[in-house]
């Protein structure tokens, strides 16, 4: 009895530190801080000037919009590689419809977003029907979408690229550089952070996502609509990819069949560096945001230093490994810290 009450005491008086260490984003925060300080020292004042900030924020925003739903998918125990093909497919859909054919921009945008939602729906449906790992299903889908994009583009326009001149409104909403250097996409990313934070951490659906990633069968037995949820998550990631495709077309005023593949691994890296467990069931939106910032800072920061730009890849690779190792130990700490103190 005495041991029980003293255990109660000790866990009551646990410092805030214990609480913080349990948070899934703790490791990624430390990593982000380390990378920031590293480049601040290595690159000097330029890295922390507004030009420095804008260079990595622009990158972070584009990847970040995709990394957020990919993070949710990975927490739910799935992957989506097809985003790499959806981004150029969306750009080209918009540029072909509204640029080449001169139809209203709204039509092109809706078609691009609709294409994204449809691909996501098929991804989710196939994963559920076939029972195959989503890694395989979405790789297949990536090639299908790539092939269709190329085929339709050549068939309709006789070319593998198209140009578009954004209207003033789209230019302002999607293609603008605020202050001459900050892409307006950054604000869309901030909005997406709020939305995904709400979904994962505030609404009850977040609980379903964690349960789905923890144990799919137990989640279904608990009455969670696991099939609907899985399909919705795939639709979210492909919708986000389509959105990035649209915003790229508006920013660069052109679209190519190729491009976008880098997003596949980059988004997964942001998510993993952000503390999401590869096996699902654990992670946070704030962590994914930290992971994205870390990735973008390394990606761009290297150009502010005198180092060989190839060093950037090495740093990213090392960070990824470090992140996985750290995530694992933070997770162990999260699981153990109270019991350890009590016994």
């Amino acid at each position, binding site marked *: 009895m005495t041991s*029980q009450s003293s255990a109660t005491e000790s866990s009551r008086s646990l410092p805030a530190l214990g609480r913080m260490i349990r948070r899934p984003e703790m490791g990624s925060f430390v990593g982000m801080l380390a990378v920031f300080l590293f480049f601040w020292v290595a690159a000097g004042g330029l890295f922390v000037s507004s030009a420095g900030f804008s260079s990595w924020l622009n990158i972070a925003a584009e990847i970040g919009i995709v990394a957020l739903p990919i993070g949710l998918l990975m927490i739910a125990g799935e992957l989506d590689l097809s985003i790499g093909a959806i981004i150029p497919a969306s750009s080209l859909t918009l540029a072909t419809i509204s640029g080449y054919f001169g139809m209203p921009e709204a039509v092109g945008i809706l078609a691009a977003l609709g294409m994204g939602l449809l691909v996501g729906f098929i991804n989710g449906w196939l994963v559920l029907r076939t029972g195959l790992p989503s890694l395989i299903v979405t790789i297949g889908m990536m090639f299908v979408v790539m092939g269709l994009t190329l085929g339709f583009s050549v068939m309709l326009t006789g070319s593998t690229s198209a140009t578009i001149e954004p209207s003033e409104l789209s230019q302002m909403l999607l293609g603008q550089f605020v202050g001459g250097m900050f892409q307006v996409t950054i604000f869309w990313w901030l909005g997406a952070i709020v939305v995904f934070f*709400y979904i994962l951490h505030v609404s*009850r659906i977040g609980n379903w996502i*964690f*349960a789905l990633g*923890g144990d799919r069968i*137990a989640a279904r037995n608990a*009455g969670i609509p696991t099939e609907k949820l899985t399909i919705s998550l795939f639709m979210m990631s492909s919708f986000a990819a389509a959105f990035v495709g649209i915003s790229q077309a508006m920013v660069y005023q052109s679209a190519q069949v190729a491009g976008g593949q880098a997003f596949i691994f980059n988004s997964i890296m942001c998510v993993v560096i952000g503390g999401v467990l590869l096996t699902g069931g654990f992670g946070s939106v704030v962590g994914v945001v930290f992971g994205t910032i870390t990735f973008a800072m390394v990606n761009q920061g290297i150009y502010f230093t005198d180092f060989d730009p190839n060093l950037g890849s090495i740093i990213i690779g090392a960070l990824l490994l470090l992140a996985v190792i750290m995530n694992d130990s933070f997770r162990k700490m*999260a699981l153990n810290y*109270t019991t350890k103190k009590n016994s």
Partner: protein
Amino acid sequence: MTTPVLELRNVNKSFGPIDVLHDISLKVHAGEVLCLLGDNGAGKSTLIKTLAGVHKQTSGQILMDGEELMFERPKDAADRGISTVHQFGGTFPLMSIGRSFFVGVEPVIKWGPFSFFDRKTANETAVKAVREFGITRIDDGDRLIGGLSGGERQALAIARAVHFGARVLILDEPTAALGVKEAAHVLRIVFEARKRGLAIIFITHQVMHAMTVGDHFAVLIRGALAADFRKGEKTREEITDLMAGGEAMAELESEIESYAQSDSETSSAAQ
């Protein structure tokens, strides 16, 4: 006698050509613990999976409160108040106590078109529910399930089932992976659930644990009911023998006894 909460009548289950359960008839009453004993492979898990709606019986009837039931899926059984707690308790090791307690039935606060997961209520309810079962060490609903001890996890899972109105509690080897102290804790919780009037099916192959909590015992051998008796009708040795399917165990025990004797003789000689 009162109507049993759950009754099986001549239940058979085969997987294709493999007959796993033969003609099982059993009754469990409210406030009673039925111990289901049997060696590995005897069919205990298959039996409870049939009760939990995971498998459908090949023939025979399952009745609840005297009324025949047909389960299409586990959810149907859960909706009727049949709740299964597995060996390792919670299935979501990386979720917090409060969150996992309410998986699928999350409390929310509505605010216009938005709804917020009510973490405070979830945590408080979960902690209160498990504390009522005497697990006072749990006082923080934000702790992760994976950080709890095996006994605490069992307690939490049982408290959860009771909280959500379970009438039949199926415990699949809840004490198998636990140390002596933790196992005693879980047995106490089983008593507590029984006191609250639940019908409990307790699966184990530890005869001592069965004899501590059981009111009623059923021994499965190769899918058939080999014995069905009440507390006090058989001794521990008899039950052990039954489970082992005959004389083998008695022989082994006498052998061990003679070893132990010669062992104590040599050690006393050494002193």
